[in-house]
Structures are given as C-alpha cells and as structure tokens.
C-alpha cells in the first residue's frame, strides 16, 4: 500500500469516509447501550468494539 509517492491527492470524502463510519458506529453504540438492555446492548457493544478492532488490524496485523 506504500504507493503514496505516486498517489493522487485524496479529496475530503476519501479522507474522512472511514473515520466517519467508525464515528457513527461509536455514537450508535454509546447511545443504544444506554437505551436498552439485552440484545440491543450487545449489538451496540459490537459497534463500540469496531474502532478497537480497526486499530489492532492496522497497527499490528497489516504491517505494510
């Protein structure tokens, strides 16, 4: 993936799409777990784990 030397400049949408997805997942997770116990809570916890998994993946698993 170290192609950035030849990479076109990314636009704002390309830059922020993944942070935005993670942000929405986090926000949904935080709020849903507050509203409901049970299954909804477990789904929302999964949303909160997403940023952690993404971090672990990029930092330790996919070493470029």
């Amino acid at each position, binding site marked *: *993936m*170290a192609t*950035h*030397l030849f*990479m076109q*400049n*990314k636009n*704002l949408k390309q*830059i*922020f*799409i*993944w*942070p935005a997805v*993670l*942000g*929405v997942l*986090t*926000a949904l997770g*935080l709020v849903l*777990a*507050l*509203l*409901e*116990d049970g299954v909804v*809570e477990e789904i*929302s*916890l999964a949303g*909160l*784990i997403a*940023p*952690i998994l*993404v*971090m672990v*993946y*990029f*930092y330790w698993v*996919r*070493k*470029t």
Partner: protein
Amino acid sequence: MRIASLKTWAWVHKWSSLVCTAFMLLLCLTGLPLIFAHEIDHLLGNEVEAPELPANTPYASMDKLLQNAKALYPNLVTQFAFREIDDDKTWTISLGKTATSEDDTKFVKLDARTAKVLQEPKFDEGFIHIMFRLHVDLFAGLPGMLFLGLMGVLLVVAIISGVVLYAPFMRKLEFGEIRRDRTPKLKRLDTHNFLGVVTLVWALVVGTTGVINAWADLVIKYWQFDQMSAMTAPYKGLPPPKTFGSLQAAVDTAQAREPHMKLGFIAFPGTDFSSPHHYGMFMRGDSPITSRLFKPVLIDAQTEKLTDSREVPWYLATLLISQPLHFGDYGGMPLKIIWTILDIFTIVVLWTGLMLWWKKRKQYIPDIESKIRLSEAY
C-alpha cells in the same frame, strides 16, 4: 483550505492541547482505576456483601434499619440512605453532625432483609478515594471541579482542531497507514493521527460529558433553588417537626405513587435533597437510561402522605444522562473493558502529541505549507 486558516487551526490545536495535556494525562490515568472502582474495592476487601438468603426472604422494615444505624451513632443525624443500582440486598445509611454537614460522615451498611449491620464502609479514604478526588476536583472542591471542566473544554477544542488538521496530512496517505519504516517522527505522527481519528467520537463524548459533570454541584444547587423550593413552598415558615412518622410508611407511599419504579435513595429531612418537613424519595426506572433519571417524590415526614412529585427538568436530566456516558458503567464488564482500551488509546494520542511538539520545538519552520510537506503542523 486556505493557508491562513490552516495556520490558525494549527495554532489552536497546538495551544489548546499543550495547555490541557498534563491534566488530561492525569485524568486518563486516574480514570483507569475508577472504571473498576467497584471491582477494586471488592478485591481490597473494602466491600462486604450481604449473605445469600432464599429469594423469597421478606425485606425488613426500613424503620428497623434506620433504628439499627442510629443505635451506632445516637448523637448523629441521618442524612441519606442509598444502595447500588444492582443491589437489592443492602442499604447504606449516612450520618453526620447535622443533616447538611459534610465532614466526618459515618456510613453504616445494613442487610435489607435482616436489618443487621454488615459493615461501616469508609468512602473518604483509600486508593480509590484518592484517584476519585484527583479526577474530580484535584482536592480543591468546586474551584478544582470547574478548573478541570475548563481543561475539558480545551480538550474538545483540541479534538475538533485535530480533525481539521487530519485532512491535509492524509492527502497522500491511506487510512490506517503508519510509516513505521522511516523516521520515528513519522511513525509518531501517523500513530497520533490514526489513533486520534479512530477514538474521535468516544473522546468527544467522554470529554463533553466530563465538562458537564464538572458543573454537577452548581446544577444541583440550581435545581434545589428552582424545583425543591417550589415543591416545598406550602411548608415555608413552619417550624421543623420534632417527631417523625414511619420511614417504611413513607417509602410505601412513594412506591404507591410510582409503582413501576424502584427506590434509588432516600434523603432524610433537612438535607439539600429534602426539606425539614420531608423525606425526599428518589425513584429510578429499570433501563440503563431511566435508572439514571431519578424522579423525586416528596413525602411529608410526619403524616407519611405525598406532598409533590415532579419530572426532572432538562438541565438535571442532561447532567444525569451525561454521567453514565462519562463513567462507562452502563454495559457491564464488556463496556468497562472497551472504556479501558479507548482510555489507553487516548493516553497514547496525548503522549505522541506531546512528543511531536517536544522534539521539534526548537526547529523553526516559517510557513505552514512546508510544515505540512515535512509532516509538521504543530
């Protein structure tokens, strides 16, 4: 983005971060054990659990509990009775020199079924207490709370300006790309940007709710002035009663008024959460959110009759809902672990940010464009 505005954002990010970083590191570090305050207290043996009794064991009369707590400190006045959200087996009663005194408070934890004294917990000493005070007010009371609240505002500013600066640095990088094979600086910068943007929403929520919590004392004061005084207005000017009716009867009246809610805590007459003439009964629902939104029910302490009950106003509701979002205590152990990991990520963001500035502070690069080309906008 225009160069001038980018320069402003870089300045804002640098200074808002630098001013609050030391305090944020302190808050992140002291916050870690606080996530597990309950578990740590348990491990240290500071918490005595009620014994297992058959599920259908009836509860003892609240009057009996009150009597047993008072018997230990006959010269003190009862202030509050409270219990943990998930604990129906115990009540803890606090006693002080007067109903509103905050020094030298005694706590008596009793079994709700047998009314036996289980222990006298010390909430105002020990490791967790020190962490708590450092986290909440730096041992400086209200000024300390408001100061940390201000630092929290700076953190929010730093996060927002950080997001703005994220864009120019990522123009030629893939999401999640960490240039670890080049200089330590680039690795540090990429780690800072990546971890910062991944934890963005969580850090914003915990930061903002922390700022709201810093106002807790003032919000409650205003609520007393705004709502409590209105509810107890008919009793204004009357001499405080010398004898009180049955606590259990008062509890029953409150329970009958809100049959679907559970009693969360009781404020005895004369505290800031009651009046000299009333028991303040604070009822809670059973979902994570309604269990935080205490509904006050005021019961005449002599006649055990209902005086008034009102929904919490928006400002108190905001405070009460912001608490679980700050503490991360509403999703059991999984949520606590998530909170811990994200807290550690935040420490890394703070630390790498500080290091990025420290290593380069003497190097003067005049224009922002070269700074960004050299991956240095701080």
